[in-house]
């Protein structure tokens, strides 16, 4: 069951990677990377159950957090040209 979940995450991950490679605009890539982050968060949670030690969900939370902040940083870079801008 958990393995099936993990496999689903893996397939999704590959599909999203295809989008990242195909790209087109940068925003497509950012979007895809963000979705990939979500999938990985799910994957980490499932892996905890899969290996019988589900206590380590903190990692998933951190992952989600980093995913969010990273996306905000990239978007900020695109909108103002630097991370220190004030706009």
């Amino acid at each position, binding site marked *: 069951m958990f393995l099936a979940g993990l496999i689903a995450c893996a397939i999704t991950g590959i599909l999203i990677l295809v989008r990242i490679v195909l790209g087109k605009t940068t925003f497509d890539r950012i979007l895809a990377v963000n979705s990939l982050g979500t999938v990985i968060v799910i994957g980490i949670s499932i892996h905890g159950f899969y290996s019988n*030690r589900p*206590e380590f969900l903190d990692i998933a939370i951190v992952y989600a957090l980093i995913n969010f902040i990273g996306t905000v940083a990239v978007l900020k870079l695109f909108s103002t040209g630097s991370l220190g801008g004030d706009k």
Partner: protein
Amino acid sequence: MISSTIGIWNYWIVFCLMMIGLFLVIGRKNFLKKIVGLTIFQTSVFLLYITFGKIKGGTPPILNESIDSIYSNPLPHVLILTAIVVGVATTALGLSLVLKINKEYGSIEEDDISAQDLVDYHDDIETRKSVDLKFKQ
């Protein structure tokens, strides 16, 4: 032969990753790319250590009263925790140097910069010589 290969194939991948990182560092002339390569190189070395620490059927080295199990080796984990932070420190310092270099030279390509440096170096020597000649006269 095959069984032993399966037992160590993970090492091979790690070694390949390491060498790709090392290639980026010593092969590429772009200063930012070199730092990226260094990150890849170091991350792969971390992977090597963690691979050493893995025990088949083991669990993460956090004691759990309810399960009586084999715990993976914690020592490599500690070493790598240290190494990760050291890696970030190196990256940060490298990036700040790249920023300064870009500001002073207007480029971060090694070929460009060494050409500029060479000109500077000769200029320096030549101008000094002419100044000295003036003194002599």
